[in-house]
C-alpha cells in the first residue's frame, strides 16, 4: 500500500514543499529558455520540470498516513483520479517515446544483412564514439530513413531507398542518421513533446527546431564526404520518389 487519496489535505509542511517544488519547476523552465545547453542537460531539465510540477499536486491530494487501513475510508473522487492520471500519463508518454515505439519498429522489421552498410556504420560509429546502431530494413518502396536513440540506437531504412541510391548517396544518408543519433535528436523531439503537456509552457515558446538539426546532420555528412554533392543528390532522389 503506497498510501491513499482523501481529497485535498493541506498542511503547512505540504504547502512549503509544494512552493519549493513549483519554484524548481519554474527554474528548470527558465534554464531551458535562457541558456544554450547541451541536449543531455535539456532532456534532464524537461523531466525535472515535469516531475517538480506534478509533485505538489500528488502531495496535496495524498494522505500517506492512513496506511494499511485506508481502504476503509478512501474513495475515488475526480481529484484523486487526476492526481494518479497525470503522472501515469507522463510515465506512459515516456515509455511510448523511448521503449514502445522504437520496440515496435525493431520487432516488426528485420535487420539488414548488407555487409557494406553494416561495416560503414560500424566504422563511423566508432569515430563518433557512439554505440554502433542496428540497421533495420523497412519493406516499402517509399523513401523512408530515420533513427532512434532509446534503450538501443537504431537506423531504419526502406528497401526503396536502397533501390535508387548509389553507394555514396546511401553513405550520405547513413552519416546523416548517425549525426542525429550523436545529437540525440529523437530524445529531444519526444522530450519537447512532453514539455507541451506542462501548463507553464505557455509562458514561453518552447519548440524543438528540427530544421536546425536536419541542416546540422546534412553538414556533418558533407564534411565527412568532403562534398555536399551526395547529400543533395540523395535528397533530390528522395523528393522524386515521394
Amino acid at each position, binding site marked *: 500500500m503506497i498510501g491513499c487519496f482523501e481529497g485535498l489535505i493541506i498542511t503547512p509542511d505540504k504547502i512549503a514543499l509544494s512552493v519549493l517544488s513549483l519554484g524548481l519547476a519554474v527554474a528548470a523552465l527558465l534554464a531551458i529558455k535562457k541558456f544554450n545547453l547541451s541536449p543531455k542537460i535539456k532532456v534532464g531539465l524537461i523531466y525535472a520540470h515535469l516531475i517538480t510540477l506534478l509533485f505538489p499536486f500528488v502531495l496535496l491530494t495524498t494522505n500517506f498516513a492512513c496506511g494499511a487501513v485506508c481502504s476503509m475510508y478512501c474513495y475515488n473522487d475526480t481529484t484523486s483520479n487526476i492526481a494518479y492520471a497525470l503522472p501515469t500519463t507522463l510515465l506512459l508518454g515516456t515509455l511510448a517515446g523511448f521503449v514502445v515505439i522504437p520496440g515496435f519498429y525493431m520487432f516488426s522489421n528485420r535487420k539488414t544483412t548488407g555487409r*557494406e552498410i553494416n561495416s560503414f556504420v560500424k566504422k563511423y560509429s566508432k569515430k563518433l564514439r557512439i554505440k554502433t546502431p542496428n540497421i533495420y*530494413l523497412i519493406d516499402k518502396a517509399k523513401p523512408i530513413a530515420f533513427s532512434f536513440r532509446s534503450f538501443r540506437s537504431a537506423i531504419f531504412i526502406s*528497401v526503396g531507398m536502397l*533501390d535508387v541510391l548509389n553507394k555514396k548517396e546511401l553513405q550520405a544518408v547513413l552519416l546523416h542518421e548517425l549525426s542525429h543519433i550523436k545529437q540525440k535528436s529523437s530524445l529531444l523531439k519526444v522530450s519537447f513533446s512532453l514539455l507541451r503537456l506542462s501548463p507553464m509552457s505557455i509562458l514561453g515558446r518552447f519548440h524543438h527546431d528540427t530544421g536546425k538539426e536536419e541542416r546540422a546532420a546534412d553538414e556533418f555528412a558533407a564534411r565527412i564526404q568532403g562534398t555536399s554533392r551526395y547529400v543533395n543528390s540523395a535528397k533530390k532522389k528522395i523528393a522524386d520518389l515521394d
Partner: protein
Amino acid sequence: MVNVNRIRFDKNSVSVLSPLENDVIKILWKQDERRVRDIYQTLKKRRKVALTSIAVILDRLYEKKLVSRRIENGRGGEHYIYSSKCTRQDFENSVIDKTVNKLIDKFGPVAVTYFSERFSKKKS
C-alpha cells in the same frame, strides 16, 4: 485477377496503363525477374527516364497487383526483385473480361443483345 480500374480510349489505341507503366510491364513480360536498376538500364536506351520514375512506376504496378516483388540480399544491401504476376495474354483477357462485365452491369439486356448480334454477324 489483375486490378485495372481505368481504361483510356485514345485516337489509335485502347490503354489501361500509362505509357511508362506499359513500357515497364512489357520488359517484365519478356524477362523473368528484374531489379529496378535493370529495368532502368533497358529503358534508358529507348527513352529519357529517371531511375526514381521507374521505382515509382514499379511500386504503382505492385499496388495494382500486376507485379510481385521479393527482397534479395546483396553486398551493398537489400533490393527488390520484381516479376510479372501474369502473362500478357492473361492480362489482356482480364481487361476484356472486366470491360464486358462492366458493360453488362451498366446496360443489362441491351448489351447482351448487342453482343449476341455482333457475334452472330461475325460467325456468318
